């Protein structure tokens, strides 16, 4: 029983990590934040992570043409996430990222988009059914605490998120078979418009819907887990209406993130994960930048 729990814990910690990493990319802003969810049998969890990524393809335009320079942006993200069961199968979570974006001698850092979530385990796996997955649904609210691209007066270098109020819902399905485990996640969100006024743009930004679909597979050996995941991410175009009368419809943004990871379950209380992510390998990206990165995560858990 303990062995199963160990495998499950290590899988879930990695799963959460991968879902977050997969969406922390794209040009300038940083993508939509993923919720922190307890998918195991814990009462609470606290996660800290540090990731360092480099933009390796500076621009993929709206027609899918890739452009690459010799000098790239680097992004470093420190994130604190937590979740707590507050009633039977209900839980609440938060995510607070701090992001630094740099290019050559220019450095900009600050708070990214904070997100909060409420989740409900609508499909429990109490009887260890061989086929039926465990299912958790979630509702997420994202606060525009990070600057949007248009808010940045230095070409997006000062941007630290989507920068919009956003409301999303999604689900996470997980399943374990012996030493193998897998997950599938789906999330849909609606971002809300806002007014921007700075030296480069004065007018209204109108974002739309966005979403992501992720799948992952893992193999567990004793206290270790080796996993891979792939997440496709989509955002509607952000329409800009300048007060001067010049407007633009923008373009949709799309990319896919592949990730490999190794986790170590030190005890029932804490664990660590090291991972590599790459956005240049999969999918058909448009209107984005593509990154590669390394990340380290440590997670503490409290049993029920």
């Amino acid at each position: 029983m303990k062995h199963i729990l160990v495998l499950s814990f290590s899988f879930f910690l990695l799963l959460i990590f991968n879902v977050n990493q997969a969406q922390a990319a794209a040009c300038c802003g940083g993508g939509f934040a993923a919720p922190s969810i307890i998918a195991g049998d814990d009462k609470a969890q606290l996660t800290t992570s540090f990731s360092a990524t480099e933009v390796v393809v500076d621009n993929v335009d709206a027609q899918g043409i890739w452009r690459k320079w010799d000098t790239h942006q680097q992004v470093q993200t420190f994130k604190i996430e937590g979740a707590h069961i507050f009633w039977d199968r209900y839980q609440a979570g938060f995510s607070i990222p701090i992001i630094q974006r740099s290019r050559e001698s220019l450095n900009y850092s600050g708070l990214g988009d904070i997100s909060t979530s409420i989740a409900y385990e609508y499909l429990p796996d109490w009887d260890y059914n061989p086929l039926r997955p465990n299912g958790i649904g979630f509702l997420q609210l994202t606060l525009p605490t990070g600057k949007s691209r248009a808010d940045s007066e230095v070409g997006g270098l000062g941007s630290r998120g989507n920068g919009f109020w956003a409301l999303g819902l999604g689900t996470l399905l997980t399943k374990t078979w012996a030493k193998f485990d897998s997950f599938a996640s789906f999330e849909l969100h609606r971002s809300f418009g806002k007014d921007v006024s700075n030296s480069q743009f004065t007018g209204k930004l109108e974002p739309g819907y966005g979403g992501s679909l992720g799948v992952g597979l893992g193999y567990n050996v004793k206290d270790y887990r080796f996993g891979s995941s792939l997440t496709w991410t989509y955002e509607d175009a952000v329409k800009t209406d300048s007060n001067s009368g010049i407007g633009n419809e923008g373009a949709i943004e799309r990319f896919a993130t592949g990730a490999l990871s190794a986790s170590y379950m030190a005890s029932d209380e804490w664990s660590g994960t090291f991972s590599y992510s790459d956005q240049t390998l999969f999918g058909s990206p448009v209107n984005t930048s593509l990154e590669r990165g390394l990340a380290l995560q440590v997670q503490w858990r409290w049993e029920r």
Partner: protein
Amino acid sequence: MFGKNLFLILTVAFVAGCAEPKYVRDSNTSNDGTNAQESKADCQVSFTNSGLCLTWFWEKKPTSTEIGSLIFKTYRLNSVDQTPIEVDLTSIPQVVLWMPSMGHGSTPTQTARVDEGTYRTTNVFFIMPGDWEIRFQVKNGTEVIDETHISLEF
């Protein structure tokens, strides 16, 4: 058995979903970093409200690592023979580098008047390659009262 099948299916899906990059590399490079070809004074580019026309050229074309500068002229067309007559704008315009597909700008530029209807914009640097607009804005305080733009691939 089920796990192995799932692994196989996902492996096939991963391979089938591989990206196919179509690269354009260093599209902005030029031998001397300049492009002295001035656009024709045929009023193809004009300000929204004043109707004044604009021509421009790179004084020093920026690269991925070097800052550039551009010269632009504002003029009206002579009513008799349509020849260009250079005239000043009501104030020194602001030049904004804007990427319309992604909805963000680039580093701020500086513009100064160098002669009648002739301006120099310095500190021109595109933060990334791609589709860009150079927006020429006449402002009254923070309000844009007149504007025109050109589009370019960089």
